[in-house]
């Protein structure tokens, strides 16, 4: 089920909120678990069993790791949990990729499995992994209540597109969270703003990208519109989802960590990755990079560690070579920045550093969104007029006019400018009062406008559902 859908907004959510706040405290996790399983069942009737399997596996492994703490068996069960989770992810997500490449290398003709990717498997697998690893490390208490653990894994606000919530983040909330009007109100604000980002900006820019792909009237301008449009689209799509997840979490008393922090204002690629999909970056740092030795090893091993982390980051996003290249692309520039580029960037005027980041990020997303490496090269070539492309075309100019204002809104919205303006107004007593008065009106209007778009619109899934 999509958050940005009529069934979610006007059937599922009101019903769950009503039941959740009516049942006593001890029953709330069970309500959330049942609601979350239904939420998943709605989109993936059969694969809900897979997710329940993941919950059972991590629950049992957690208990066993805890039971044999300090003994070799504890490590055995840790590895068993890691292998189980990765095998599940590998089988459903990567089988066909490996078979295709094996066929290509060996000349064999092994049949592909053609499995549908279970929605959100990359997210909940990483969550279950973090739980068992943290229990093994002693960073988290073992969860003896299956309902509580399954609620953590299946919790519908973050189930299918993150953020990747660590068990330690919600450990306390699972047993002793509180609810208040302030939290509820803040949750609604955050949820509706995320909904607006998704429906009013991300979906529009997604439409621009679709139009570009279908067009036979290509030009250099159109390629740039596409590249900029897609970069903003993926940001508003994914950060909008994260806002909604964080907001919904608040409604039910949970505190999820932030997942984005204005990544497009970064002055280096390493800063960009401290601001973009923060829950994934920190997951790889804590569960892959540091266990491999991080940067406290020889230069050769450090390069190996960087290579592994960014190869895996790319591969996590999708079972295709362009995702691997996308990850390594970032790895390459991160290494350059560590060696010498970082120092140079610090000496550059800020706007040049911004241009450097924005350009590389845009190129990376062109690679990311290509259906093959061939198309990636062709799209990058298009940005520079390869093949004698005209500079402008009639359709590109039309779409520039049609999407121009949305692009401007998106560019401003991707920076802290709106937040700074609101903060400035709030710093004055009168301004604060006026904003307080306007906020409910604005949010009600936003909900109605988003509803109007959903009523008129077509099915538009979130981009990150495919990961």
């Amino acid at each position, binding site marked *: *089920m999509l958050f940005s*859908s*009529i*069934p979610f*907004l*006007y*059937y599922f*959510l*009101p*019903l769950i*909120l009503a039941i959740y706040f009516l049942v006593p405290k001890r029953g709330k996790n069970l309500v959330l678990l049942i609601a979350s399983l239904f939420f998943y069942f*709605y*989109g*993936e*009737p*059969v694969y809900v069993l897979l997710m329940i399997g993941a919950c059972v596996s991590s629950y049992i492994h957690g208990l066993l790791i805890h039971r044999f703490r300090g003994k070799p068996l504890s490590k055995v069960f840790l590895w068993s949990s890691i292998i189980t989770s990765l095998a599940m992810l590998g089988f459903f997500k990567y089988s066909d990729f490996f078979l295709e490449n094996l066929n290509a290398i060996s000349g064999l003709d092994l049949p592909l499995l053609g499995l549908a990717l279970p929605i959100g498997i990359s997210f909940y697998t990483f969550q279950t992994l973090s739980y068992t690893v943290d229990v093994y490390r002693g960073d988290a208490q073992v969860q003896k209540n299956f309902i509580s653990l399954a609620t953590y894994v299946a919790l519908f606000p973050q189930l299918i597109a993150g953020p990747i919530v660590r068990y330690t983040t919600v450990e306390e909330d699972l047993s002793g969270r509180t609810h208040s*009007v*302030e939290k*509820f*109100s*803040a949750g*609604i*604000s955050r949820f*509706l703003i995320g909904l607006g980002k998704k429906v*009013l900006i991300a979906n*529009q820019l997604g439409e621009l990208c679709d139009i570009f792909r279908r*067009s*036979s*009237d290509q030009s250099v301008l159109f390629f740039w519109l596409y590249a900029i449009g897609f970069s903003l689209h993926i940001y508003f799509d994914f950060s909008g989802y994260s806002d909604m997840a964080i907001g919904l979490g608040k409604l039910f008393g949970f505190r999820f960590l932030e997942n984005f922090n204005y990544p497009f204002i970064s002055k280096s690629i390493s800063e960009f990755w401290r601001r973009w999909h923060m829950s994934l970056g920190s997951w790889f740092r804590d569960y892959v990079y540091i266990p491999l030795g991080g940067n406290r090893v020889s230069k050769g091993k450090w390069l190996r560690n960087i290579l592994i982390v960014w190869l895996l980051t790319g591969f996590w996003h999708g079972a295709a070579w362009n995702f691997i290249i996308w990850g390594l692309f970032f790895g390459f520039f991160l290494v350059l920045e560590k060696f010498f580029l970082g120092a140079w960037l610090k000496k550059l005027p800020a706007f040049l550093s911004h241009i450097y980041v924005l350009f590389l990020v845009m190129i990376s997303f062109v690679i990311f969104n290509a259906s093959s490496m061939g198309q990636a090269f062709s799209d990058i070539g298009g940005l520079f007029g390869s093949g004698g492309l005209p500079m402008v075309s*009639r*359709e590109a*100019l*039309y779409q520039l*006019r*049609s*999407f*121009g*204002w*949305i692009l401007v*809104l998106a560019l401003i919205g991707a920076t802290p400018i709106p937040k700074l303006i609101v903060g400035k107004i709030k710093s004055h007593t009168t301004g604060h*009062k006026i904003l*307080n*008065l306007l*906020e*409910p009106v604005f*949010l*009600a209007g936003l*909900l*109605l*406008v988003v*509803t*109007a*778009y*959903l*009523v*008129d*619109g077509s*099915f538009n899934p979130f981009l990150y559902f495919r990961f």
Partner: protein
Amino acid sequence: MTDKIKHIAVMLTFLVLTGVISFFCLTQESTAVSDSERRPLAQMPEYSSDKLLSGNFFPAFESYTVDQFPLRDSFRNLKAFIHTNLLGRNDNNGYYEADGYLGKLDYPLNESSLSHVIDRMQFIRNKYFKDGNHKVFYSVIPDKNYFLADKRPVMDYEKLIQTMEANLNDMTYIDIFDTLTIEDYYKTDTHWRQEQLSDVVQTLGNAMGIGDQLSKNYTVKELYPFYGVYSGQSALPTKPESLYYLTNSVLENCTVYNTETGKTGSVYDLDRFESQDPYEIFLSGSQAILTIQNPANTSGKRLILFRDSFGSSLAPLLAEAYSEVVLVDIRYVSSAFLDRFIEFTGQEDVLFLYSTLVLNSSSTLK
């Protein structure tokens, strides 16, 4: 307003708004058809465990919730307003307004669709009109985008005509592009205005050798209010306009026989003005095979007109020159079986008359 009151206001606003809308979602009775969008609306899917487990139930349920949403038309209007006015989009789902006219983007030229039309026309020509003394003509009606093209992407009309001419060299092309302007079309509809077609009719008539037999004396009749098909589909704000039709004593005496239903009626079916598509007053709209019989013309001349809905308003204006005009819409009858329903004499004039809208989306032509 203090922060505390604001939090309460935000919470209550959200709960009341979603609660009220949810209540109407659950209690409102389903509507079968959307008059504004002119399409059937999704209904609550029937439940079965197979449907549920195969993942087919909930997508159908989702369509139902969207189609049956309370005040659906008002929400669509709100969206169109925000889309075009606040977010600055040039069109709403491809529909746009220019100089008071509503249009729908239709580009690029769909070459495979055009090939399909050419294939069907060649097939009909070779199967029914190869032998005998036929004169076979074709003409193309530009859609409104042709006239509203300024700054908008449009199909390559020149290439469309060139492709047809290159492939249909045993038929005579009649160019009517220059006889039309945007004023000859309805503001809220796809179609042209019958009372504005004198130049088109004369150009066609001259090329077909019947120019001197066509009447210029008609009485213009007006029907109001007319909301064309784009009016509801675009959800953009529109004003009603008048629908006009031409009549005279010859047309009043003509009868129209519907081969499919076996019924005989008149050229104008004014009851249809109250239907979902008021343009269907012309020959009762889209029908597989119709025959206009003109008792005032005893020459025995016959015209076979292969047409889309644009032809419905044009055909009566050609009727005076013929004893019979047979209108064939191969969207509703297969071109392979026409001789089962129409007796060809070997002497007919033949005119293929299609709008660029159909040429660019011809998969329904059989």
